[in-house]
């Protein structure tokens, strides 16, 4: 469904000099710098797949999505979305893709939601009967009927996101790009949005690329993740495999009976978090028995109230990958 080969996107930025003199100089001359936002990445996505495309701020996620949708032209490389090059055949591509940018809206802000959806019906040449069925479907799953007559400007963030999701799926796209669809939403709305995304992926076989900073979105929705770091792909594969690759360590959370100001431990134990003087989180190798650690605490007269060992979550693993850079 989506083929990306040796994709690159470079931006040229002008460097402004600081200070008064620097600002004056910049009026006549400014140095240029090339930023490699996306640097030679390749991947394939099969029809019906739901892929989590993740990375830190500025890693190149959104730039990739913008190239996949056709908004940005690649500096080099090739993209095919269902056989179409998005930057060359943008109009044709528009009928087969849906896009939601979490921080923007495609609704006409001064009009009621139903007017925006009606306009999209005309733009995408959607038959009235199919349109009515779609609206019924979105009302059942997202409850959009509750705010169809409200001006988009007056919607809450959650309502706006639901309406944007409906707007992006009205023309039954084969591919849906979701760029941070749950950003700023409360837990209940997040859950509803996630369930909706899963439902359209499983039932309608819509291919979905999801970028997000919310690891729970990824854990709930994606079976495959692509991690982009500084413009390059750091990992592409299943979530379970990723955990195995990163996770030859476990997390241990300890709750002490008395406060400990500075907990010092020998190698190979690493203190990752001090939640309070009573509570610490440690990282220990998988082969290291917990009894050994308890023994160290006893020797130092640290009285334990509770101790738990668990495998790190996906978020921890990704964090570790960023910290280690290119370790994987």
């Amino acid at each position: 469904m989506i083929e990306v080969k040796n994709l690159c996107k470079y931006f040229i930025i002008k460097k402004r000099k600081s200070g008064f003199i620097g600002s004056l100089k910049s009026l006549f001359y400014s140095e240029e710098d090339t930023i490699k936002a996306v640097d030679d990445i390749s991947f394939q996505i099969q029809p019906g797949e739901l892929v989590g495309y993740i990375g830190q701020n500025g890693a190149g996620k959104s730039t990739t999505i913008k190239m996949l949708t056709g908004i940005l032209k690649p500096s080099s490389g090739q993209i095919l979305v269902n056989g179409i090059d998005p930057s060359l055949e943008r109009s044709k591509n528009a009928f087969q893709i849906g896009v939601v940018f979490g921080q923007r809206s495609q609704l006409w802000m001064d009009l009621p939601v139903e007017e925006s959806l009606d306009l999209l019906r005309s733009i995408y040449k959607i038959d009235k009967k199919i349109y009515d069925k779609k609206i019924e479907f979105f009302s059942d799953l997202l409850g959009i009927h509750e705010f169809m007559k409200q001006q988009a400007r007056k919607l809450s963030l959650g309502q706006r996101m639901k309406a944007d999701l409906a707007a992006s799926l009205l023309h039954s796209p084969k591919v849906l790009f979701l760029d941070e669809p749950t950003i700023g939403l409360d837990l209940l709305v997040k859950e509803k949005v996630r369930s909706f995304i899963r439902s359209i992926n499983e039932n309608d076989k819509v291919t979905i690329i999801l970028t997000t900073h919310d690891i729970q979105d990824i854990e709930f929705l994606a079976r495959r993740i692509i991690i982009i770091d500084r413009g390059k792909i750091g990992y592409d594969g299943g979530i379970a495999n990723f955990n195995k690759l990163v996770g030859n360590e476990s997390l241990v959370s300890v709750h002490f009976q008395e406060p400990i100001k500075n907990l010092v431990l020998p190698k190979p134990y690493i203190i990752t978090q001090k939640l309070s003087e009573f509570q610490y989180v440690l990282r220990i190798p998988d082969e290291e028995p917990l009894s050994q650690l308890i023994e160290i605490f006893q020797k130092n007269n640290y009285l334990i109230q509770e101790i738990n060992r668990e495998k790190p979550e996906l978020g921890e693993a990704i964090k570790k990958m960023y910290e280690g850079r290119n370790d994987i």
Partner: protein
Amino acid sequence: MTHFFETHLKFISKAFQRSIAYKLEYYTGLANAFLYIFIFTSVWRTVALESPGSLGIWTGDALVNYAILSTLIKVSYGRNEYLLINKIKSGDIAYDILKPYSIPIMYISDSLGVSVFQLFARAIPLLLFSIFFFGITPDVNMYKILQFLPAYLISFLLFLSFGFLISSLAFYFTEVFSFYILNSALITLLSGAVIPITMFPESFIGIISWTPYPYLYYYPTAILLDMPMSFSYNELLIRYFIQLFCVSSLAFMIYNSGIKKMEFAGG
């Protein structure tokens, strides 16, 4: 083709609905236009009374009729530059690029919707108001109206091209308000919206007539008032087309190059 018209009719209709959504803005706009006409008719009447010999061919009544008609034409054009400027600045234009329609045609349709609103909600009430309160008596017949309509239509397209040009500058500059103000100032001075251009010195008129500005309000008003022109009606239309071609080509050039260079930074 039917689908194309249906979609763009909806754009026009939505822009009309959007314009009508803000009642306070509508009433203040109408009050502004009333005030504008009141000030100009008062000024021209006073000028005509104080110095009757200094206005050349212009009599007090002719100036009042001119002020009212040019204001009505001006009011009937909906300014819509900030539709695109805001989209470009916020990055929301990304959604328009992803939709299967042409952004320039969407802009024209949207501006047409705003102008239809302006025409019915502002220009027509103002015309009725002017007839009853200022007693304007323009000698308008069907022949003049038939001559006026093509000029009015092209001047409207010229006005839209100016707006599109200013909007497209937002691709290059973070703040385009200064261009917007400059264009508004040039329109105020050179378009005949405030002062009929024949009142300027002869040498200045020669320069102005090469710019697109007097084609916005002066010539359409001059046709309605049957004022003498230094060229025939047919030549005027040819000049109109040339001006429209030049301004719209420049606007499209700026737009096309701008949309290619747009980088949509950020997440």
